[in-house]
């Protein structure tokens, strides 16, 4: 189950987004929809470090009337964009250092931080990742997915060591299955082939309109069919722009896609979705 609807997002209409925002500002309503989804056979749910998702997780831990795996998407961009607006870049960096466990930040520490960063930006990224994962220690995190904005920026600038470090750290140090989200699947597949790394788990748009399937639907279709790693299809309904049946038929044409993420905000929608996918 996708989570955007719980954060007041609609990919086709802002009015619908505002309605959802009102409904799901009470996390009990999120819990109720997810509980229903779990009852109907949904096995996992996407989450991120958005304050509302953290509140939902606390509520889930307190009640826990159903079992579900969580798929964590990192980092939560909205939170950091808001922080940048409120504190500027220097304020955000200071907050990250403080959250890393250091209570007072002197100018010499800031200087050392820059020197440290010069030597080893990967270590800083890893500390940042550990910080992002703190709230999720007590829940069952099945996989961690790097947001498409980061994955695609790293790919576009060919910052390959960061991709490799991310895979190694999440897999070996944390014992969690790492994954990526990308809107540029052909480039993603090609880059990992060139790197000679075992194809990682990937979440990527697969829909009959070719929406967010760059560079083109046909190129992505070809790459998807050739991919040896695990694929989780996302954006399958284009946020509601494509019909459920046409999306389902399209998805069925890929033998190697066994899982998909889909959003639902009501019981009726859930029942309809799960009934079709169970066929």
């Amino acid at each position, binding site marked *: 189950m996708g989570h955007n609807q719980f*954060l*007041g*997002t*609609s*990919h*086709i*209409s*802002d009015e619908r*987004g*505002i309605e959802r*925002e*009102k409904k799901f500002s009470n996390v009990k309503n999120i819990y109720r929809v997810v509980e229903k989804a779990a009852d109907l056979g949904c096995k996992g749910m996407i989450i991120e470090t958005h304050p509302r998702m953290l509140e939902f997780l606390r509520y889930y831990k307190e009640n826990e009337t159903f079992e579900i795996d969580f798929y964590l998407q990192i980092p939560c961009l*909205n939170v950091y964009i*808001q922080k*940048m*607006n*409120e*504190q*500027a*870049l220097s*304020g955000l*960096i200071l907050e990250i250092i403080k959250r890393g466990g250091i209570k007072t930040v002197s100018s010499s520490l800031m200087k050392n931080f*820059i020197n440290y*960063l*010069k030597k080893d*930006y990967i270590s800083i990224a890893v500390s940042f990742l550990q910080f992002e994962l703190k709230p999720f220690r007590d829940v069952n995190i099945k996989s961690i997915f790097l947001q498409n*904005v980061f994955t*695609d*920026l790293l790919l*576009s*600038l*060919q*910052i390959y*060591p*960061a991709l490799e470090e991310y895979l190694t750290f999440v897999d070996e140090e944390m014992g969690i299955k790492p994954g990526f989200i990308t*809107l*540029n699947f*052909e*480039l993603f597949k*090609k880059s990992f*082939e*060139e790197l000679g790394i075992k194809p990682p788990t990937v979440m990527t748009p697969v*829909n009959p*309109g*070719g*929406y*967010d399937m*760059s*560079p*083109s*639907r046909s*190129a992505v279709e*070809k*790459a998807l069919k050739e991919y040896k790693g695990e694929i989780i299809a996302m954006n399958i309904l*284009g*946020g*509601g*722009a*494509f019909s459920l049946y046409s999306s389902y038929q399209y998805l069925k044409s890929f033998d190697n896609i066994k899982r998909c993420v889909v959003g639902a905000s009501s019981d009726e929608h859930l029942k309809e979705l799960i009934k079709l996918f169970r066929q």
Partner: protein
Amino acid sequence: MGKIMDINLEKSSFPEKKITGALKVGVIGAGKMGLLHSGIFNNLNGSVLSAISEKKKIISEVIKQCVSGIEVYQNYQEMLENERLDIVVITTPVFLHKKMIEDALNHNAHVFVEKPLAINGQECRSLLSKSYKNKTMVGYCRRFMDTYKTAKKLIEEKELGSINDFTAHIFVAQVFRQGKGWFYDPEKSGGGVLMDLGSHAIDMIHYLFGGIKQVRASGRSIYSKEVEDYVSVDLLMNSGVIGSLEVSWSVKDYRLPELYIEIHLDYGKIITTEKYIKFFLEKDTPSLKKGETCYYKQHLTKDVPINLAGPEYTLEDLHFLNCINNNQKPLCDLHEAAKTNFVIDKIYSSIKTNATEEINYEI
């Protein structure tokens, strides 16, 4: 160009990247927009990222470590001196734009600058007082969104008749307490929400409806001390059409910016946002059916070679490259973008004087 040559780009269906003859791109400012354009230009046929200049040491150090095969500078003038750049992309705070544009043009580069063009109309007039042979473009990216492009086509085809009036708003949930950074310092940003979000709306009003004759406006600071958080404007267009615009970055529930435009015409209305275009017709026309029609952006999407934060950014960079290669005028060059600054100046004047202000587009 080591990092690109390291990869064999001729294999499989990976888009072929022609390194020979590719235009060399240098980016000034490695914030969100700088990195975005860096990634896009690095992946388009016909261009390659050669250098980035970022004043903040902490960021330039990270880029040096992460991105191989490019030169990284802290001083943009050094970058302009040392690199023979074909294209310079400027994504710095607004108050730095004018000097950087002039310096880049004086180094014979084509210039792409993020919106708004400059801090006020006076700076724009100074920029436009000299003529340059190189191409320029300002990043009003909504001109490359298919929903607004479809609205423009519908207006131009006149199947819904002539425009009577329009209402528009651009809202986002962003400022609910005093913010920090150059955005909230009028000396550096030129103003508050009107300069930031409002400039997109005014550019789109020019794109859809043409020139503006008069404005009358009111504005208010709610959370910010030095800049406005809310502006309301009544507009009279040169065509006689009247319109209204509301601009705010302090409206709850809008996670992402929404530019909503509702246009009333002789035989129906058009409503468009970033996400959809709807039109309502009172009667059948030669090519359109009576009733409501709605297209979501997902239906109108076009293929782009790389998608980093929305296809519109790739489409605008591609458009700029095509204009350079085919010697064509970019859709929103310095002259076109300066119009938005001229209107913003008059809106601020109207807020101060509480009077109707006439727009002067003369250079």
